């Protein structure tokens, strides 16, 4: 059971003056139970890729296969795929439409045929997962804080019990506490066996929370691997629009000059190594 993207390419408005190549020959694989971060600069194609994962866009060439089903096959499969791959858009709170949190979160499972108690159960389970207590059920989502709205929007996707959760820049605009809560949440989702595909432009965050990282630049994959593999790779390649975390880039330099052994983006580990290297003031 996994989500596989094979040689996916996509161009907006092909043949027109406004033509934009968004994805070129993108391939990767995401497994249940992992957090895969997709990292890239603005305009690198992240959102276009996200929309391919649940069949909102279908490949112009290449393929996307979810649990064995291709997104460009018969409509029946597409329906299954949509249910199985939950997509949380960028600024999802902007798409909130219902008058109560309960109605907002019910929308998905209702569409997939849940009614009565089963529906109610889904709603409360999703709220529980995302850390919204039951008292929120009758609240007006428009009056909640930014972080709370974001959680309602994510809960409404979780309510459909997706096996894959794709989140497009879920931490944008959240304060630190919000970011911490969200990353813990992503971790607990993945521990429950959900495959979390986390889209971000923040390499530092990705290095800290992911099992694997895919870096895309101008529509093509430039690096793919575990955080430590990625740290190694980035010392050799220059990815357009990608700023290396300060600590990591200093650790490259110090490693190159032979002062330290290991690359790291953790300030404590870098400091330890510098101390060990006995770079002392005289």
């Amino acid at each position, binding site marked *: 059971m996994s989500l596989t993207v094979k040689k996916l390419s996509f161009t907006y408005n092909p043949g027109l003056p406004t033509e934009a190549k968004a994805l070129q020959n993108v391939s990767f694989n995401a497994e249940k139970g992992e957090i895969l971060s997709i990292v890239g600069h603005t*305009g690198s194609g992240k959102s276009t890729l996200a929309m391919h994962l649940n069949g909102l866009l279908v490949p112009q060439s290449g393929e996307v296969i979810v649990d064995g089903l291709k997104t460009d096959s018969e409509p029946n499969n597409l329906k299954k795929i949509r249910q199985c791959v939950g997509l949380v858009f*960028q600024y999802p709170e902007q798409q909130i439409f219902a008058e109560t949190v309960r109605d907002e979160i019910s929308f998905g499972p209702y569409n997939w045929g849940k009614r009565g108690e089963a529906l109610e159960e889904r709603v409360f389970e999703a709220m529980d997962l995302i850390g919204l207590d039951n008292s929120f059920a009758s609240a007006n989502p428009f009056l909640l804080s930014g*972080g709370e709205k974001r959680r309602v929007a994510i809960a409404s996707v979780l309510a459909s019990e997706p096996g894959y959760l794709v989140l497009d820049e879920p931490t944008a605009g959240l304060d630190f506490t919000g970011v911490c809560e969200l990353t813990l949440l992503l971790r607990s989702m993945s521990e429950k066996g959900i495959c979390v595909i986390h889209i971000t432009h923040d390499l530092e965050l990705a290095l800290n929370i992911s099992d694997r990282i895919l870096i895309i630049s101008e529509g093509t994959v430039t690096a793919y691997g575990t955080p430590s593999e990625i740290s190694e790779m980035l010392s050799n390649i220059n990815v357009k629009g990608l*700023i290396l975390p300060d600590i990591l880039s200093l650790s490259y330099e110090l490693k190159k000059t032979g002062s330290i052994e290991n690359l790291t983006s953790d300030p404590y580990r870098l400091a330890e190594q*510098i*101390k060990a290297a006995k*770079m002392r003031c005289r």
Partner: protein
Amino acid sequence: MAPVSAMLPRWRLYSWSNNLMSSGTTLYLKGAEFQYPDNEKKVLKGIDLEIRAGEWIALLGPNGSGKSTLLKLFNALLLPSQGCCFIDGINTNETKSVALIRSKVSIVFQNPEDQIVASVVEEDTAFGPENLGLRSDEIKIRVKEALISVGLWEKRKHAVSSLSGGQKQRLALAGVFAIRPGSLLLDEAMSMLDPASRKSFLDLIKREHSSGCTIVQVTHRLDEILNSDRTVVITDGQISWQGKTENFLSISENELKDMGFAKPPVAVLKEELVKSGIIPGSTRSDIGEIRKKLCLLQ
């Protein structure tokens, strides 16, 4: 409930003014309180804050603590319900001075949609200078300079609606640059930018600051405030901490976490190295400076 914008004139309403600022504005709040008409809660509860001309202030605080409201007092979009607000000594409650105040104080809003007024990129940027009553050749120069500096010159003929969120934030900044205000208030103005654009956006702010502009920067990310002079933290409508930014950054990681902030990794590194006597305590939390000090040691 009525949005603030319905209660007050559009923020970008400037009248002709020859008092264009090239040097920084002083911003002063004295015992300022604020309460929205249809909200029982007092949002600001007695703020005393004096911001000197040319100072760079980082204004921090959790969501809902009153930061955006405070900024709106400074350009007379809102008036204090108690206490007062002075801009270069002018009380913001003098209606006749509102235009002058707005030419001195520009806000880049949290949501760029709130301040985009035209449908074509270059027209939007021209809006501010047009309202200042500038000559058309001067407007052209300013628009070009502003759009080049935010990297949108190539898109000057494009529809605003075709821009991404990050591009709209940069357009909002261009509109404000073109006015050349004496103070720039940034309300989470970089929240939608990726790290590369964030870096160039910060460089632009540094440039404005070094030309004397007063900066008030609201953000959640401490790695954006490393260049500020002073940090002010608002909690529940009151100032809960203020002091030099370097002192704020040397608060321990756990204590900052309790205050709701992530200590920037650079500040953590600096502190660890200072603690073990590798670099001097006077080193700023800046990777370039730490690098230099380390190189000197090798």
